[in-house]
């Protein structure tokens, strides 16, 4: 099957730094384009040529397996030369060095930089200093736009729509860029968004994000169509946000009983990597209502859609 991406779809901006700033049309356009890449990725011949001759650098200041390999595959399938740069977090000194890194890389004339950084706003800072397109692969607790897009694609394919769905995002909202990007995207597409977590893991002011806030899974999951679990980011926790992982699982971990509070056909998502037995148990994670593996598949397609549509804005495109 030969599927041609719609050539008409172009993102308005040079970079993809967040879901914030994307119009509904752009979000839907990216999802539609990604659908086509889902089909392509299931073929034997997965190669396209829209990025032929382009150089894509994956610049990861924070360790990542799935996001980095997903971006790498996406770039390669579109024909780009992809280079992975893993920058040891310990060897950089944030601000100043980040800008130096940007200037150095810029001199190598890449076309697309895919950047992940542990500090919120770092990707935007870098984008201001380079001449190429920048894709945010996650900055601190700010945004992770391709994750929200792949989540939306997964939801749309399984529920047929986003509009009107009740999506409960559960757990460590405070440290989660996935939550922030998802809240913005889902609100833009008219889903009903809820967040559920202990007060210590809910950022003050979250109730003004256009979400319903719950501290109790039983109430928060009632009539939910999608239960989106977040990873408990223990590595970002300086100090005592929760008393123990046992207590966290007892009140906020997703098991069959808590999933039973949601709609009978509710589906389970998780951006990964999972802490099994902390925020989700294996029966649910590996069960028939889990979309977790499908999310990974959608990740490659969504990133191809992002790279493909950004490439149309590149000079000489």
């Amino acid at each position, binding site marked *: 099957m030969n599927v041609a991406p719609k050539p008409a779809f172009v993102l308005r901006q040079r970079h993809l730094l967040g879901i914030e700033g994307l119009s509904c049309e752009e979000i839907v356009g990216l999802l539609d384009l990604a659908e086509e890449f889902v089909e392509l990725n299931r073929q034997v011949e997965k190669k396209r040529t829209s990025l032929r001759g382009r150089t894509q650098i994956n610049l990861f200041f924070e360790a990542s397996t799935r996001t980095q390999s997903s971006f790498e595959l996406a770039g390669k399938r579109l024909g780009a030369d992809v280079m992975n740069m893993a920058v040891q977090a310990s060897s950089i000194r944030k601000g100043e060095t980040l800008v130096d890194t940007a200037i150095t890389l810029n001199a190598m004339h890449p076309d697309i930089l895919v950047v992940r950084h542990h500090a919120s706003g770092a990707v935007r800072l870098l984008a201001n200093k380079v001449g190429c397109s920048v894709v945010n692969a996650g900055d601190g607790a700010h945004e992770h736009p391709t994750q929200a897009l792949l989540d939306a694609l997964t939801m749309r394919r399984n529920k047929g729509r986003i509009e009107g769905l009740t999506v409960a995002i559960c757990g460590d909202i405070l440290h989660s860029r996935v939550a922030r990007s998802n809240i913005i995207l889902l609100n833009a597409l008219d889903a009903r968004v809820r967040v559920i977590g*202990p007060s*210590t893991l809910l950022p003050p002011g979250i109730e003004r994000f256009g979400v319903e806030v719950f501290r109790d899974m039983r109430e928060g999951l009632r009539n939910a169509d999608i239960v989106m679990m977040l990873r408990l980011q223990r590595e970002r926790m300086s100090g005592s946000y929760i*008393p123990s992982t046992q207590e966290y699982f007892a009140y906020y971990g997703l098991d069959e009983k808590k999933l039973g509070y949601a709609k009978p056909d509710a589906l389970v998502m998780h951006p990964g990597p999972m802490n099994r037995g902390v925020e989700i148990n294996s029966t649910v994670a590996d069960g028939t209502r889990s979309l977790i593996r499908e999310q990974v598949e959608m990740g490659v397609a969504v990133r191809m859609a992002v790279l493909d549509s950004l490439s149309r804005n590149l000079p000489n495109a």
Partner: protein
Amino acid sequence: MLSERRPILLTNARVIDPSRDLDLPADVLLADGSVREIKRGIGAGGVPEGTEVIDCTGKVVAPGLIDMRAFIGEPGAEHRETFASASHAAAAGGVTTIICQPDTHPPIDEPATVDFVLRRARDTAIVRVHPMAALTKRLEGKEMTEIGLLKAAGAVAFTDGAKSVTNANLMRRALTYARDFDALIVHHTEDPDLVADGVMNEGEFAARLGLLGIPTTAETIMLARDVRLVELAQSRYHAASLTCAESLTVLARAKEAGLAVTASASINHLTLNEMDVGWYRTFCKVSPPLRGEDDRKALVEALRTGLIDVVMSDHDPQDVETKRLPFSEAEPGAIGIETMLVAGLRLVHSGDVPLTTLLKAMSTRPAELLGLPGGTLKPGAPADVIVLDLDAPWVLDREDLKSKSKNSPFDEARLTGRVVRTIVGGRTAFEWV
């Protein structure tokens, strides 16, 4: 020994139910472990067969007391106090529910320890016992405990006992987290850096005795900090033991602002002052220290107005090894569970505090704050009831006290009024003969 549970009719009593501001002559019928009925002339209308009828002419009948702050040695310091010995002392003092503190060895900071305490008390104590659990693991002030699981196991509140949590960020998170479980945090408000090596109230008297003082500011600063944190977290907070007028100003402002802030005062700080330390009496060394007379008077006035919610014993058994020492080296702490009410009656007899107000602060308010069913004589409430003789004069001899430790600041005190009967769950647990 517990008597057999048959219905009890208390006749011709002056019945005081502070939960309803009732003070009226009536009979009280207790059956099946509950308060059945309160009205005049129940006895005349015939009572269930086998009812024990007790004439309470001239006596007061009131709800059993709930002592919101008592340190029991179990587990870890059974030589000072056990649930058994403390419960006998409690019953003799009209206390039908002990709220024990978590600074034991090991501390009560895990659900399994809560379970141990509840089972141990069930098997050995003659009054009810509910533990507070630690607010931080190992009482170290570094990580909060499993507030949800501990509450589910039976902890009625969370506190680090006689220790203050100095890390404001941890305190904020604990308050924030506790709100999700509607858990009450009880905090000893004393800045340990300002307490430093102090051993008694700072001021002229300490200076004359050559002892290092503890300023009231040590308490007020911590309370003021906590109130600000409660404002952020919007959770339930209780100051464990306030002692001075400045703290009461902070407390009053917090309450006016509508915050869920409440406070206790210990019977020691309401009835004694720094002068009672006299020539270095270590039984009057308590934490926070006994204050000046002006502060004591302010505290009594706050009790009268209801600004101070709860009066507790701060029962802290210490033995000869920890008390027969130079003042500065002795451990702080005084027993008080057995004398809390009779010492409080001094304030009633002096006309400073109405009896109903005192009883409310020792029963109704703690029940409300801790979510316990007692502290009331409403029909259906647990049959935890005391009978008081308000006027009996006597002299306290500490050797008669039922506590394992004898460190009472009221030794040889002349007292007026005493508990003549204590009923727990419809059974007589103490009777004065």
